[in-house]
């Protein structure tokens, strides 16, 4: 099937006005030698009901986090998204619009993005935020690009940064020419020993991939001392409880906004967050909405600083980004309005409480130790297992758990992520199941 409304009579009448006698004639300028002389090798179109059946059969072959208790995190985590988010962000006036080039017809999206920017500024304690980037990983790459100058092309990245993020940064650096160097964190956290000349940015994740809290202020001081910028990767869920990047002297703050308003969806669409100081705002990538007034003096909103962007500045743009994650930003705005300052704090406290409890319980499993037993954590717990983490994760699936994420560079390190949804009973059950799996007891996996 298709959604074109053309009846045969329409087509005939239209062709007559155009002055050709067939639809084929409209394609006459395609040279013979590049024409496809056969139909596409795809199945014929299907009715909506058939497609619905096929898709629901595929969906049934995924095991969801409603079936498997989810302790997997790493940027994307299983938070409760209140029911009002989907209906509001999904309203079709929002969902079927595009970049608000005609602001008079787009005040809804523009104002919502202005509110989003405000919330990110409030959360991070920074001075300005853009209207979204693709995800947390690309947001890091974009932030790094903002710091590069002709003579500063090195980026120092903490060993506490999620390897997925570092990998993405490395890919993008092939184009930007950034030199990505990492420093080790044997204590599970800490600033670089030395910051070489030519360093553009120091990148710290706080809380880091091990769940551990970093001393961002100290790292920022060291970076600034060396003439470099400090980029903090933050966890937005933490910011009801933890001091915000702005207070910690970060120059740029990036994060993954999925926990606010976005479903897991196998990791996308997500929401890249980027906030900076006013001084850097002209270097920011992405859309930025500004408040202004109309001819009658009424408050209204427009895309602003467009001279940064590809459609105006082309090769000299701050980034190539065009289509972004606006609907996710809208969903995040609604979710954050629902949370409010108290709800955000309460959510953060619950995550932290669950992590503290899980750390105790899981470290009590025979053979399991905490990766950094003495470091303060927020909501992820890094464990060292006596076996490969991926194998244990796989076994625990059969017991109904997504036990966490294996650290890509440390095969026996399991990172267990906690959200406000996880209960004492679930954590206890995970600990028991882990103990059984490690003891080799129970169902074959």
């Amino acid at each position: 099937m298709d959604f074109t409304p053309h009846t045969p009579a329409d087509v005939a009448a239209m062709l007559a006005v155009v002055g050709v006698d067939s639809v084929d004639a409209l394609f006459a300028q395609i040279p013979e030698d590049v024409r496809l002389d056969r139909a596409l090798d795809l199945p014929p179109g299907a009715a909506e009901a058939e497609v619905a059946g096929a898709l629901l059969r595929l969906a049934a072959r995924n095991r969801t986090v409603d079936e498997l208790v989810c302790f997997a995190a790493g940027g994307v985590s299983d938070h409760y998204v209140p029911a009002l988010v989907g209906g509001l962000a999904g309203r079709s006036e929002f969902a079927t619009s595009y970049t608000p080039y005609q602001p008079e017809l787009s005040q809804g999206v523009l104002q919502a993005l202005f509110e989003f920017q405000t919330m990110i500024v409030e959360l991070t304690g920074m001075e300005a935020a853009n209207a979204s980037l693709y995800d947390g990983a690309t947001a890091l790459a974009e932030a790094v690009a903002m710091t590069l100058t002709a003579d500063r092309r090195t980026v120092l990245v903490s060993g506490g940064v999620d390897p997925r993020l570092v990998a993405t940064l490395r890919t993008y650096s092939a184009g930007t020419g950034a030199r990505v160097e990492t420093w080790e964190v044997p204590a599970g956290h800490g600033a670089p020993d030395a910051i070489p000349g030519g360093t553009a940015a120091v990148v710290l994740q706080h809380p880091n991939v091990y769940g551990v809290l970093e001393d961002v202020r100290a790292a920022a001081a060291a970076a600034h001392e060396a003439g470099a910028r400090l980029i903090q990767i933050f966890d937005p869920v933490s910011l009801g409880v933890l001091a915000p990047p702005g207070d910690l002297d970060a120059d740029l703050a990036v994060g993954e906004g999925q926990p606010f308003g976005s479903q897991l969806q196998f990791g996308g669409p997500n929401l890249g967050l980027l906030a900076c100081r006013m001084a850097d705002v002209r270097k920011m990538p992405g859309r930025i909405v500004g408040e202004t007034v109309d001819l009658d003096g009424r408050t209204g909103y427009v895309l602003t600083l467009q001279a940064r962007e590809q459609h105006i500045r082309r090769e000299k743009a701050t980034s190539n980004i065009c289509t972004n994650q606006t609907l996710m930003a809208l969903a995040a705005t609604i979710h954050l309005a629902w949370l409010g300052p108290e709800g955000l704090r309460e959510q953060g406290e619950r995550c932290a409480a669950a992590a503290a409890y899980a750390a105790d319980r899981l470290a009590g499993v025979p053979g399991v130790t905490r990766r950094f037993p003495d470091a303060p954590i927020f909501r992820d717990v890094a464990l060292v297992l006596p076996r490969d983490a991926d194998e244990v994760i796989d076994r625990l699936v059969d017991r109904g758990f997504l036990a966490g994420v294996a650290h890509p560079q440390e095969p026996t390190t399991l990172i267990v992520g906690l959200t406000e949804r996880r209960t004492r009973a679930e954590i206890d059950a995970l600990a028991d199941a882990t103990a059984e799996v490690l003891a080799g007891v129970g169902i074959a996996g």
Partner: protein
Amino acid sequence: MKRGAPVRTQGPADGGTIFEEGAPGRRASSFAPSDLPPALVPESHRRATPPRLPEVAEIDIVRHYTRLSQMNHGVDTGFYPLGSCSMKYNPKVAEVLAQAPGFARIHPAQPDRTVQGTLELMWRLERALCEITGMARATLQPPAGACGELTGLLMMRAYHGDRGDERETVLIPAAAHGTNPASVRSGGYRAVTVPADARGLVDVAALRDALDGRVAGLMLTNPNTLGLFERDIRTITDLVHEAGGLVYYDGANLNAIMGRTRPGDMGFDIVHINTHKTFATPHGGGGPGAGPVGVVEDLVPYLPVPRVERTDDGYRTEDDVPSSIGRMHGFHGNVGILVRAYIYVLLHGADGLARVSDHAVLNANYLAALLRDVFPPVYDERPMHEFVSSARDLKAATGMRATDVAKRVIDLGFHPSTVYFPLVVEEALMVEPTETESRATLERFADALAQAAEEAASDPDLLREAPITTPVRRLDEVRAARELRLSWRPADGAAPA
């Protein structure tokens, strides 16, 4: 719908922001009672003052964002002929199915065996996109077209690099979309412009001159940004290949050619697809999208990881490909959007996709014909799925510009076309009606444009003052850029916490 009905206007603009709703201490959220001991976050790490988020009830939130939605134009409220954007009808069934828990409630780090449904979907979508574009393999990872471009350029870089062949420049037509040069730069190349000839097509002679050993490749869309088919495409791609370069296809205009020709057949090596254009995935207010990239056999080693592979016992993700350029996204890309794109492909099938392009091209040609006398096309070539006209003559005759026409068209009940793009055309009106619009809608839109042109002479204030049916009138963009009010502040002007 009667002609000239205001598109929407809806609700008032003077509602204030969400921060002005509510009252201190009000909240919408609640949590289950916790049976866990409280957290032990060190005092030194704690936040001093709470973020100034709204303090509102659910009813405040619902009314606020319902009102904002009513101040927004979308395909569902009316015609939306933005050139280069393929603003077509987004099938509702894709929305509904993509939200099934089986797709929406899976974590990207789940073991492969627990996500076989989605992996199969991704594999099948990759196959379908390769068939539609004539490519060997594809990555679904780029979350938008621009990221797809960068992915392609980084693969180009890796390809030349593997051959010890350091190249510096990428050729692009002057009319190319802004993301093309910006991506070239992000990919570490320098953009060099190839001129167009009088037909509006690539000047083959100039291309020949521009090609040398420093050229890594050429980026092109076909039909090109002016909506015209590059007739010399085979010559063009051959020339680039002869010079050792690769040819990149910007798939934003794929909507014109499905089932008629394929980038692979034209000699392209790398192709991105904007699922949010051609495959109708909703991208409200600016996104999300997805920008899968297909490549010819030679470039397969460079595709990003993770990839999805089919094996004898199911599908698996593959992370370990040393030749790969690496990750372009934190996880697997905008998978939720890919689900919708796959649904679109299944619904249409080979026959439906061909009809999409047939009717997209028919609609553009019909609308161009209706407008011929008022806003003449800039080029003589027959347009494909979109066309570029100009308000240059109107401006000369009446002083009214493309933007004035656009704003008047708003008052007459339509979203205007793209204006002032491509930059190479003076007073450009770039119109892409898409295939899901009916003949009647095209006729009403043509009438509205004709009326606006007429009024430009007879009653120019109607244009100058327009729009007047919208929640706000023309906005002061200069002031916005000067004052840079980028976030809401309370009336007392206090800086954020």
